[in-house]
């Protein structure tokens, strides 16, 4: 009866932690070995029969991983803002879409794609700053109202974007040096004359993945190696204590919100170049951010990366192997994580 008041979580973790870690290490090693074999070996016929073809499987995985890069870019801002400010920014998808539109306008008018990317980041960072200073600061400490306000903003924003850019689908044109496909060191099949067929993959998507990784590492370094990052992490853990120790919390909030919104805008331009820009994309990326953050754990950059990887892979593999039930796979991942670890894979129990 007395145990009901405080569940003994700390006791569970300390006992037998090392053996558990070893078991997991072994498990992941095994997974890595199987994956390496799947990618590098030429598949036997039975495997080709089960998984359609090596080409289908490998490109599904590549698509999944590159999509995960995009999802990570969107969700990292979302999770950062949530972790620090307890602000569920449901307008995050709108920020993504607005960034994409702005990137399209700037890139198509100036002809410089990189300028479009920069504009997407900067303009959205400024908008995020304005939102934080003029809207969310007024509702501080009231989670529900902040969330409701973000819903209101997303409705108005979606409607105004529809008014300006209509329902047309846009495609941001990438510069020539990003176009084309590159050969990957992966043999998909062997021709009858013994010549190996290497897989080719769009260069731009690999660049998206690389950018996501670079930004992920950059964010991690910023959070773990700089003074501002230290303040942000302290704020995630205990906001009141941070402000009591003399830090201007509002400035930290403003910086984080600007970074979060800026990343959404940046992802909008990058994603709009890889896929397309159209009304409704805001909802899609909002869903992606929500699920990624629920799965990965709120407020954790590493969690966002893991969540994005899981969801991106699930979505693309689902698309290839069970097209009409693909979304169910994403949903099942979310439910399983919530059942086993409600705070998310890397989330901290509060």
């Amino acid at each position, binding site marked *: 009866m007395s145990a009901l008041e405080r569940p003994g979580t700390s006791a569970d973790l300390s006992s037998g932690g090392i053996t558990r870690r070893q078991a997991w290490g072994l498990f992941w090693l095994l997974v890595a070995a199987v994956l390496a074999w799947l990618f590098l070996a030429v598949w036997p016929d039975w495997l080709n029969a089960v998984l359609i073809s090596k080409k289908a499987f490998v490109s599904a995985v590549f698509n999944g991983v590159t999509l995960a890069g995009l999802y990570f870019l969107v969700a990292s801002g979302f999770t950062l803002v949530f972790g620090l400010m307890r602000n569920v920014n449901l307008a995050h998808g709108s920020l993504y879409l607005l960034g994409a539109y702005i990137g399209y306008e700037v890139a198509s008018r100036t002809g410089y794609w990189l300028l479009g990317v920069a504009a997407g980041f900067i303009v959205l960072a400024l908008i995020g700053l304005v939102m934080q200073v003029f809207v969310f600061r007024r509702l501080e400490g009231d989670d*529900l109202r902040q969330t409701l306000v973000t819903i209101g903003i997303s409705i108005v924003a979606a409607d105004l974007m529809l008014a300006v850019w209509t329902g047309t689908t846009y495609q941001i044109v990438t510069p020539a040096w990003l176009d084309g496909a590159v050969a990957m060191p992966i043999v998909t099949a062997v021709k009858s004359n013994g010549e190996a067929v290497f897989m080719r993959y769009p260069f731009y998507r690999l660049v998206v993945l690389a950018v996501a990784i670079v930004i992920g590492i950059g964010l991690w370094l910023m959070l773990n190696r700089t003074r501002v990052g230290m303040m942000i992490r302290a704020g995630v853990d205990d906001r009141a204590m941070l402000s009591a120790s003399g830090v201007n919390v509002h400035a930290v909030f403003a910086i984080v919100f600007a970074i979060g919104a800026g990343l959404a805008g940046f992802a909008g331009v990058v994603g709009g170049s890889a896929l397309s820009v159209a009304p409704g994309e805001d909802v899609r990326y909002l869903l992606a951010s929500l699920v990624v953050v*629920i799965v990965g754990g709120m407020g954790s950059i590493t969690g966002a990366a893991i969540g994005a990887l899981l969801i991106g892979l699930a979505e693309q593999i689902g698309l290839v192997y069970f097209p*009409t039930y693909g979304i169910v796979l994403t949903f099942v991942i979310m439910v399983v994580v919530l059942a086993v670890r*409600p705070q998310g894979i890397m989330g901290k129990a509060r």
Partner: protein
Amino acid sequence: MTVLASTEQPVSAGTVIEKIGAGNIVLLVLLVLYPAVASNFFLAQIGAYSLILGMIALSLMLLAGYGGMVSLAQISVAGIAGYTVAVFGLNNSGVHGFGWPFWIVVPFATLIGAVASALIGLISNRTEGIYTIMITLAIATAFFYFTQQNYSLFNGFPGYTGIRAPEFWGVAWRDPLPFYYLCLGFAVVTYAAVLYGSRSTYGLTLQAVRDNPRRMRALGFNVTAHKVVAYFYAGVIAGLAGVLLVWFNGRISPGTINVAAAINVLIIAVIGGMRHPIGPFLGAIVVVLMQTFAIDIVGAERFNTLIGLFFLVIVFVSPDGLLGLWGRIKPHLAQESLRSLR
């Protein structure tokens, strides 16, 4: 437990309840007499539609107001019930449509909706507070995409058409006047049930769980079970509303349950106010009237901007919606009159 309840309720609860009772009776009489002055358009497109949306928002109000759980998946629950009607009843889309009689289909669809709602509650209650809104929004969005992708069960993008309200007792229930009374009947029953339930032992326990789950757990209450049961009851209401909605539209498709619709329900509940079950109906009338007549003001295209801005103003000015606005103005007026006396 009674101690907890009495801290929640004001001391003068008895007189307040009496007042509300009188107001309810007046309201009911007005609503019953409404068809005498209303045209068919006002009966169906405004009256019945407001009542249906009000019921869905009422199910959210039950969860959010008494349970502190803001669920955005209530439209999905209504949609599940609606799809059940389409699949097991009759439709003219040529997919499924088993033709079960309405008196089996309606309770069955409601039950399916309620069970789905309870499952959503079970999932979203793994975490607490603001997380609920995220998880339920994710569920609602995922369900929308699923209905759009899946043809074997939900008939994909077109959905189901040609679903008709039944005819029995010699009344064609899809005609405006009978349909209005049908919706009114369901709405009154659910409204009264929520009002009664909120004062029952279970309702008070749920409110106590909302205010202090930790203490309730310590007192030996099963917090999760109470919340999941609340989701079940909310699912019954949303399921019934879903049946009415599919009869009202004559069709159901992913567009009925998309994210905009899910958020619309939240908007209705927030605009109306979530402190009292009349709030959602009030909000529904306001939103439906705006939806219908905003075309004359801003044009059909920019309706969402108007409703979004209105919603933002309500959230900023009065967290408890129109009801809260009234609740805040009333004592203020009383004070003003006191001041003028001095």
